[in-house]
């Protein structure tokens, strides 16, 4: 059953590919925050069964690594029926559309993208730059998660797939974070 006040945070990526592990690393840190009403999950990628979990929450926050853009950015995302569906993974906006079609779910949804720099090496650690961005993103998001102040904190609504850079100030900082 949907609980409008409950938040689902899903960090995804492959921790064995250096900065691709930013999403799961964020999820791990968020879990340690132990914020009431915030459920944390992590995976290599989003898959169709995540639609069932999404349908049980009022707010969903996806966390993924970004190859470009500012150190981090939080933006509102909307369901998209033509969102990317790969063989064994599904894009967040397509997943939201699936949750809507299957379960009638319309959660308020956000994408937190954190900038990474190395996605090719087989190493289970973040680069220094990515680790710094992760710390900054965590500092920014901790009060947002506690206070449920997502709308105030997020950049303008934008379709998934727009680079985070397009949503941010020229100095490379997230508009909201730099205030």
């Amino acid at each position: 059953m949907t609980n409008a006040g409950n938040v689902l945070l899903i960090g995804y990526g492959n921790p064995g590919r250096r900065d691709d592990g930013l999403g799961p690393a964020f999820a791990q840190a968020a879990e340690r925050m132990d914020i009431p009403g915030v459920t944390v999950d992590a995976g290599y990628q989003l898959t169709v069964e995540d639609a069932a979990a999404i349908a049980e929450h009022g707010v969903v926050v996806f966390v993924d690594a970004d190859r470009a853009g500012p150190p981090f950015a939080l933006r509102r995302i909307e369901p998209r029926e033509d969102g990317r569906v790969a063989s064994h993974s599904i894009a967040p906006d397509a997943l939201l559309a699936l949750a809507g079609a299957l379960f009638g779910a319309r959660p308020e949804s956000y994408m937190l993208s954190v900038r990474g720099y190395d996605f090719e090496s087989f190493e289970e650690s973040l680069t220094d730059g990515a680790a710094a961005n992760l710390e900054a993103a965590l500092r920014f998001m901790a009060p947002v998660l506690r206070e449920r102040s997502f709308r105030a904190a997020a950049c303008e609504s934008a379709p998934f797939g727009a680079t985070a850079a397009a949503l941010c100030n020229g100095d490379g900082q997230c508009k909201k974070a730099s205030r």
Partner: protein
Amino acid sequence: MTKHDGGQRLVIEPVTRVEGHGKVTIDLDEHRKVKRARLHIVEFRGFERFIQGRPFWEVPVLVQRLCGICPVSHHLAAAKAMDRIVGGENLTPTAEKVRRLMHYGQFFQSHALHFFHLVSPDLLFGFDADPAIRNVIGVAKKFPELAVQGVMMRKYGQEIIRITAGKKIHGTGAIPGGVNKNVSIEERDFLLKDLDQMVAWSRAALKLCKDYTVEHLKELAPFGSFDSNHLALVRADGAMDLYHGNLRAIDAAGKKIFDQVDYQNYADYIAEEVRSWSYMKFPFIKSLGPAKGWYRVGPLARVNVCDSIDTPEAEAARKEFMALTNGAPNNISMAYHWTRMIELLHSIEKIKELLHDHDLQGEDLVVKGARRNEAVGLIEAPRGTLFHHYRVDDNDQVVMANLIVSTTNNNEPMNRAVTKVAEDHLSGVTITEGLLNRIEVAIRAYDPCLSCATHALGAMPLVVELRAHSGEIVDRRVQA
């Protein structure tokens, strides 16, 4: 898309809904007829070097980083190899049954995902339907009940993995010589709750797939099809065994090439050929050589190769399937889907059997024996036979790793399937939407995992190129 006169090479990149980054090139001869088609796959061999120098007991967890699609298969194949390193290959009943439950859970969720998420749109809407509709969201809107089943079956398999491996990703359940936890009564009862529903849905999925194949046999039989050898694990009595057994290979007519081969000796029977144009190697049966020794693996090969299946409903389904070809091996590429659903039903039957076995609650979890320095772990992963081969030094560090993943075993067959589709469906020097769709459908039959690459935002998954006899690219199409 680019186009030039007099051309003759088609490139399709990337292949949508096929994981990773793939590229198909179609080479034309001087008469603009298809000479060959190649599926280029980016494979990261660097992973084997990454394992070197690591303590052997870390490997079953580490290898899960290799692939976000079938981490459990890598986890178990590595654990089976490390069992032998610690002399603990004769597992306790509890350890073997917990691992098997994990493995069948992985099969169940993987096959359910592939069928409902990837294949059902092709079957329900047709190969020529608009890709904007021919996808899982299209199915969810038009056939919501079916789509919910797919999601819930996938979720059920993931719950089995969470319970047996400790968590959904980076599980630690299998350790050298055994497992680190059993299945509690509470966990068992949690899984039993939805079991009957899962069995019923599996039966329905098998029926849907079988009926579709039989009804469309005239169209499907030649589609991307060709005769081939087949390879799989079988039990000592010849029955299908997805977790453990010996290797059997048969030819296109069903004649045994080798049988009951201990996979510790796989290198005496299987070799890998390197081709300059592909990162992925081409395995073959040594006694037949690279030209004739390539083979198929996965659900179709397993059903063709085995003598029986040890669960009643899947066995009845196998007999029905084999009757289609009068007991001879079935070499229809699109029959992969039907056999995948036979295995789906087999997996849930095995899960049922295991959940009612009290050994799952046993306390004897680990065994050890005489230490070895070299071992092979082999398992049937959802998409085919998976080889893990390691050497470990006296300091417990891995000094050599060789992995032959399922998709690599199917490398030549996938190239053949793409070539056949190009020969049958390419008209002129243009990559039409219909050709693009059919290439996708043919590759998808093999359920490949094309890459274990990153997926970060901004990454593009697939490309098809049409190349002239002169080498000039005359058409190129990207399925974004």
